[in-house]
């Protein structure tokens, strides 16, 4: 069997940063790139099935982006993914999560996996939509925010528990093939060994353009998107009243706040 795991290289911001000249994103030099935290968990969930299976299970990582994202795909290879695919050409620039999902669905049609695991959301823009939109383009069943998965390789249904608000889980059975979006905490993601990191550096990454997947120029980029970034800006935020001084002075003030609270309650 095969599990396809779409991953994203996300960006966090440096302590100081500036909006670029387009006014629609942060300047490249202030972005710190890494594999999306949720994707560590979705990849691990696929690798767990592979490790526990008696039949051969292939885990394929896929991502959409320019050459720099190879670093994140190599991280997936180092952790145990069998293959990695990167989709890109200049026309993909400016795609929203829906256009990205269209590309991922095209890869899934080619790869014909039995399951597709995506992260619930990305830590940088948190649309929480790529995985479920991918399911829509594939016409597959889907479940979001999965915090537990029971699945026997090759089975026609899986049992999942969705993590709802307020500490409640909703358990359901879902037909496969299916798209599941995976929540943090579902497992304990592994670290790659130094040896496997070295091996991953030498592994090939297959690069595909949208056209090779049967998509037209209008399917990706701004014309294939359902939203467009118009402006990005640094908001004026409320700011806590800061307690200055040494740790001892700060703690003394905090103790005062606590005593006052307790006094009021008594």
């Amino acid at each position: 069997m095969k599990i396809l795991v779409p991953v994203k290289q996300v960006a966090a911001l440096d302590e100081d940063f500036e909006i670029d000249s387009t006014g629609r994103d942060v300047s490249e030099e202030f972005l710190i790139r890494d594999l999306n935290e949720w994707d560590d968990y979705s990849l691990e969930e696929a690798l767990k099935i592979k490790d526990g299976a008696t039949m051969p299970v292939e885990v394929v990582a896929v991502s959409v982006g320019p050459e720099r994202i190879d670093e994140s795909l190599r991280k997936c290879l180092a952790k145990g993914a069998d293959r990695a695919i990167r989709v890109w050409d200049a026309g993909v620039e400016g795609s929203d999560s829906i256009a990205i999902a269209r590309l991922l669905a095209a890869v899934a049609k080619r790869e014909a996996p039995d399951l597709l695991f995506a992260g619930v959301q990305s830590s940088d823009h948190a649309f929480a939509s790529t995985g479920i939109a991918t399911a829509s383009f594939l016409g597959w069943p889907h479940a979001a925010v999965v915090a537990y998965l029971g699945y026997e390789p090759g089975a026609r249904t899986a049992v999942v528990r969705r993590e709802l608000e307020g500490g409640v889980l909703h358990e359901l059975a879902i037909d496969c093939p299916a798209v599941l979006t995976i929540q943090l905490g579902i497992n304990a993601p592994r670290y790659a060994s130094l040896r496997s990191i070295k091996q991953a550096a030498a592994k090939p990454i297959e690069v595909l353009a949208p056209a090779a997947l049967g998509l037209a120029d209008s399917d990706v980029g701004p014309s294939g998107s359902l939203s467009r970034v118009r402006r990005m800006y640094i908001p004026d935020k409320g700011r806590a009243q800061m307690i200055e001084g040494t740790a001892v002075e700060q703690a003394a003030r905090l103790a005062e706040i606590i005593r006052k609270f307790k006094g009021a309650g008594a």
Partner: protein
Amino acid sequence: MSGILVIAEQRRGELRGVSLELVTAAQAVRRGGDAVSVAILAVEPEQFVPALSVGGVDELITVKVDAREFDPDVHQATVASLVAARGPSVVLIAHSIDSFGYAAALAARQGYGFATDVFKSEWMGDELVATRDGYGQKVNVEVDFPGRKTVLLAIRGNVFKPAEQPASPTVSAFVAPAAEPRSRSLQFIEQSTGDDVDMASAEFILSIGRGIGEEAKVAQFRELAEAIGATLGCSRPIADAGWLPKSRQVGQSGKTASACKLYIAMGVSGAIQHLAGMKHVATIVAVNADSEASIFSVATYGIVGDLFEVAEALRSEF
């Protein structure tokens, strides 16, 4: 296309509070003669009519569906059918775990303009503009939807005040289209771990986050919480790592700390889900090494400094 369609949310027979927040959010995108219609999907939708009869709602649409609990296929087919029948220019849903399960599929299939986790929306001329945040709440992002006749917005919770003025909207029934669910609801499970703490009734919580660094440090904060008379809580990464049981997690996906009045967050950077779950607390004190941590924008008091030094100094005060 005109009018605003709001999709209310219910779970296990209870209307979710965010439904009434959506009614308030709808007023900001109302233009001229726009009517606000609120649809509720349930096995017995009429039971929600009284709770949804509030000011700002022109029409309540009851939609009887076969699925007792949330099902993504039923929701997608029904909302698509409602939009086709009513032709709204804006559809508002909650940015919730249930909408995570169908909103993107619906928008992708129908070609609606689409944005999630929206906390502000308004018309600028003929363009609907939605504002959300990015990069861990460090920037605001305005998005628009060129050429889209209908726009689906998933609205962040705890931003808009719930509408509560009683009113008498017209009520009409809508026949849901046939849908074939491809998943089957089995049961709801309360996450319990044998730890009998009741975060919901705790008035004073000392919460620890990723900033404590390692599991061995948990004991020190447990002892500190005890000394100052606080209930020990934690943010998601601490519970996920198994350093504290899930029942101690506060924030949106954890327990609702509804009685909390004083919240001391140590080493909690402040993911949006965590902040949303603690927004109601009267006094929040954040202690963090990172002066730019998001939590300082919602905290009442902030302390930038070494977590352990502050914790030790605080311990010696009691």
